């Protein structure tokens, strides 16, 4: 140790001191040495195997992926809350309480610096998750763009988790604080979810509840009212948590503590306001609406120019968001369409039905006594209507998005609908009509099952004629014809077949 005389640095006056620069340097130190930093790679690995993997397996629709990002924040936020609580208890754990107390910066300012370091890293990490998901979606999606409100709620939730966890750790330092805070942070959003399931609207303030329903952002616009209420609530939580840190006597001077009290009070008011706003929310067919933040002008359905595939017997046109599903859907519908293409009554085009938001989202609010109560959900089946006839598919079917899921939902019903629309001209089908229908369905690749009336069919089977019956024999005979011959016979005899004037023996 040297005793060499050194010049005593002149003590800066209050006017020349640069607290902002010192604060930035303090923050830089905290950022470099934050507990969260070395754990981020582990957190990334965990998310890669859990949330991110699930997100990227969902349909590549911007609204779906945006909503996933909001819900994903539960896990990240909980771990951040636990680590923030851990950071807050650092001084006691490392026995530096006296040292830092004897320094002149207020305790509150020191705490804010260490909290800010944890929060900045957590928010940057979440931003990286958003980037990964949105970059992947940008490569896969064919229409639309991100709904930024949803990850914004997620980011606000991250900061709120961090602030609340830090406050807990500061006031209740102990070896169990960090894990209990993490578990509590995993639990807390679920309280809102459970409340929502019990028709308690205030529960929607939870970041685990998002404002979207099936079709949001694709067929009808996203209404940000609930997201706004959630952000107001989360901002209130942040302010309250950081404000209470200034309450202890050691936190700082009187004015600083008063400022902290005001901030905490403002936070509580904001949180209450957010919860109250969410409490007025309603689940409508087009999503969650907060009346105070909703304008009727935003209820218009989204207009779009259909994307069409002309490779099948008739054009198949869908919302451009489902462009990637066009080839598969066209291939799925072609076997049935090609049997009857060009015949009277056969659909000349396949497209999505316009429908109401309720038809699209599958949510229909039932009312009893003037108040919304029971919610019924219905999925519309394929229909043929119009002149010339058009096959309409329900948009709600496509929101499952993969062809395999669509074929599961549709089953054989679309083929039956197409063929019956052409063959049947009267309510009670004649034996010849049933035989031709069976033949066409068989040619379209469907499995016919002969079952007694009232028996449930298994798998994707359709009811067919009794094996060995004259109808079955005629159907087999007709199905054995080349496709061109079948089509030619139908062209020549369709009118008579529909009128019921064709007998089984007259079928080619």
């Amino acid at each position, binding site marked *: 140790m040297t005793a060499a005389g050194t010049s005593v640095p002149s003590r800066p006056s209050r006017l020349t001191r640069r607290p902002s620069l010192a604060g930035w340097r303090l923050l830089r130190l905290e950022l470099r040495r934050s507990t969260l930093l070395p754990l981020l790679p582990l957190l990334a690995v965990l998310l890669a195997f859990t949330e991110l993997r699930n997100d990227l397996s969902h349909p590549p629709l911007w609204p779906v992926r945006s909503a996933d990002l909001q819900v994903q924040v539960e896990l990240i936020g909980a771990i951040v809350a636990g680590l923030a609580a851990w950071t807050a208890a650092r001084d006691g754990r490392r026995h530096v309480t*006296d040292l830092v107390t*004897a320094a002149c910066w207020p305790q509150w300012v020191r705490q804010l610096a260490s909290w800010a370091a944890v929060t900045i890293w957590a928010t940057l990490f979440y931003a990286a998750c958003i980037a990964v998901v949105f970059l992947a979606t940008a490569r896969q999606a064919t229409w639309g763009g991100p709904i930024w409100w949803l990850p914004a709620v997620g980011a606000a939730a991250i900061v709120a988790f961090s602030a609340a966890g830090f406050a807990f750790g500061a006031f209740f330092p102990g070896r169990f604080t960090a894990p209990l805070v993490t578990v509590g942070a995993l639990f807390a959003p679920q309280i809102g979810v459970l409340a929502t399931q019990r028709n308690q609207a205030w529960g929607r303030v939870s970041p685990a509840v998002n404002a979207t329903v099936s079709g949001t952002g694709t067929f009808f616009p996203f209404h940000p009212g609930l997201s706004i209420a959630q952000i107001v609530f989360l901002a209130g939580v942040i302010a309250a948590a950081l404000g209470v840190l200034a309450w202890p006597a050691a936190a700082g001077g009187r004015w600083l503590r008063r400022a902290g009290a005001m901030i905490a009070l403002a936070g509580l008011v904001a949180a209450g306001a957010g919860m109250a706003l969410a409490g007025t929310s309603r689940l409508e067919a087009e999503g969650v609406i907060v009346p105070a933040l909703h304008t009727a002008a935003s209820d218009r359905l989204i207009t779009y120019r259909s994307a069409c595939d002309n490779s099948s017997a008739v054009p198949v046109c869908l919302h451009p968001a489902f462009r990637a599903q066009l080839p598969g859907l066209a291939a799925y519908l072609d076997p049935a369409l090609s049997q009857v293409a060009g015949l009277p009554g056969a659909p000349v085009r396949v497209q999505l039905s316009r429908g109401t938001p309720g038809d699209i989202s599958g949510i229909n609010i039932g009312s009893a006594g003037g108040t919304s109560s029971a919610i019924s959900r219905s999925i519309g089946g394929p229909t043929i209507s119009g002149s010339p006839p058009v096959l309409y598919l329900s948009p709600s079917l496509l929101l499952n998005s993969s062809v395999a899921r669509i074929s599961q939902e549709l089953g054989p019903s679309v083929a039956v609908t197409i063929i019956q629309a052409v063959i049947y001209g009267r309510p009670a089908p004649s034996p010849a009509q049933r035989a031709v229908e069976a033949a066409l369905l068989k040619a379209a690749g469907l499995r016919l099952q002969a079952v007694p009336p009232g028996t449930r069919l298994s798998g994707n089977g359709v009811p067919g004629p009794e094996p060995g019956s004259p109808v079955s024999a005629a159907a087999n005979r007709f199905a054995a014809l080349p496709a061109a011959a079948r089509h030619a016979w139908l062209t020549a005899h369709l009118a008579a077949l529909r009128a019921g004037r064709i007998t089984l023996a007259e079928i080619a």
Partner: protein
Amino acid sequence: MNVEITDLTRRFGRTVAVAGVNLQTGPGVFGLLGPNGAGKTSLLRMMATVLPPTSGSLRLLDRDPVGYGPRKEIRRRLGYLPQALGYYPGFTVAEFVEYFALLKDMRPAQVPGAVAIAIERVSLGNKARAKLRTLSGGMLRRVGIAQAIVNEPELLLLDEPTAGLDPEQRVQFRALLRDLGNRATVIVSTHLVEDVGAACTEVALMNEGKIVFHGTPDELTVRGEGHGTGDAPLERGYSAVLAQARA
């Protein structure tokens, strides 16, 4: 006078750690001796403004630390090394000293230079970038001294500063103390009477919360002539005063 203590008392429950201490001291090195549990650390902590007194008055650097503003000004001019030094293991030596330099409201432009000087003064210049968890106990103690002196304090409080230092380091530390004492009030609490003899211009001896001797090291030595037990004159004076206080 940088330190003016009048009838200062501190109780922990029913235990009286500091019992009506009166003390005044100015620039120089002031040694605080006493057996375990005498109240030295509690007195030092009160002077460091981290422990409020139960009663009595305390003025540090012409300010009353009860008020927030004056307390803040005192802390800006204070250096404190506690007996049990905690640290953040992941910090480097330079970062740890820098952290406290910033917390003591040093001008940011001055901090890097002050940190470098403080680290050099404790002979840890070659360890500036070493993580604290890699240092020995004695080196950690020197890091603690560095953070205490980084802001060139007007009041420097050191509790057992030479614990863990090797003899060579202790000699150098005493020279540092003498140098610091030219400009500031340095109060050193220690069990090592040779540290007091070598560096201090004044010494007080505490026993059971009270000051039982206040004078120069030479006066303490005189008290031990022909009376106390010990291997060195100062030790004999120390034990003689204690024996008299306990009698």
